[in-house]
C-alpha cells in the first residue's frame, strides 16, 4: 500500500512565527488529506487535495500538492497558541480492496510558545 513520510517529527515555534510540515512519498499519490489532532483529542479533517500543483487556503493555513503528486505541504502563517497539536497527512486508497482506507503519516507535533 501507499506510504507517506512526514517531516519534521516535532516543531517548536514562538507565537507569530510560521510553520511548515511536509509529507513525502516515493510513489505518485492519487490524493492527500490533512488532519489536525489537538492534545488528548481526535483527528479533525482539514482538507483534501487531488490535483497536481493544487494550492488551497483556509485562513492562515495553506495546503499544497506537488506537481509530481509525490509530496504535499501544510504551511501556517503567524502561528497562534490555538494551532498547537499534531498535524497528519493521510492517503486514501484509490481503488481495489479497502477502498476507503486512510494511511496516515507519522505526524508533526507542533508546539507554540506564547
Amino acid at each position, binding site marked *: 500500500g501507499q506510504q507517506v513520510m512526514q517531516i519534521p517529527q516535532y516543531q517548536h515555534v514562538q507565537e507569530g512565527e510560521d510553520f511548515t510540515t511536509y509529507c513525502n512519498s516515493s510513489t505518485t499519490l492519487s490524493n492527500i488529506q490533512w488532519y489536525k489532532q489537538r492534545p488528548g*483529542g481526535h483527528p479533525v479533517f482539514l*482538507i483534501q487535495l487531488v490535483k497536481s500543483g493544487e494550492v488551497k487556503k483556509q485562513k492562515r493555513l495553506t495546503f499544497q500538492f506537488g506537481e509530481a503528486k509525490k509530496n504535499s505541504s501544510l504551511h501556517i502563517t503567524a502561528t497562534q497558541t490555538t494551532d498547537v497539536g499534531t498535524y497528519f497527512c493521510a492517503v486514501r486508497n484509490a481503488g481495489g480492496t479497502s*477502498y*476507503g482506507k*486512510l494511511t496516515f503519516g507519522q505526524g508533526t507535533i507542533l508546539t507554540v510558545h506564547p
Partner: protein
Amino acid sequence: DAGVTQSPTHLIKTRGQHVTLRCSPISGHKSVSWYQQVLGQGPQFIFQYYEKEERGRGNFPDRFSARQFPNYSSELNVNALLLGDSALYLCASSLREDSVYGYTFGSGTRLTVV
C-alpha cells in the same frame, strides 16, 4: 446534529479478556471505519464497513473483528487482549465509502490492558 459517538470513553481490561467497543456514525453516514492509534503514532486502519458489509481489513490479527448493524452503528470486538492492544480506538464515519469529503472521527475509546 450529533457527531460520531463512541462508547465507552475509557476502559481498563486484563490480559486475556474480551472487549467490545461501540460507535454511532453521523446520521445519514453509511460508512464506518475503525482505527487504532498507539501513543505517538498515526492512526492505523483496522476495518471499514459500508452498507453493513466489510469493505476492508487492515493488518490486524483475527482476534479483531467488527460488524455493522442495520442502523449503521458498529461494534469492534477484540478477543484475548494483549498488553500491546492498549491504544486509542477511533471510529470514523463518512457519507460515502471512499471518504472523498474526509472522515469525521469520534472522540475515541481509550483502552488500557493491564
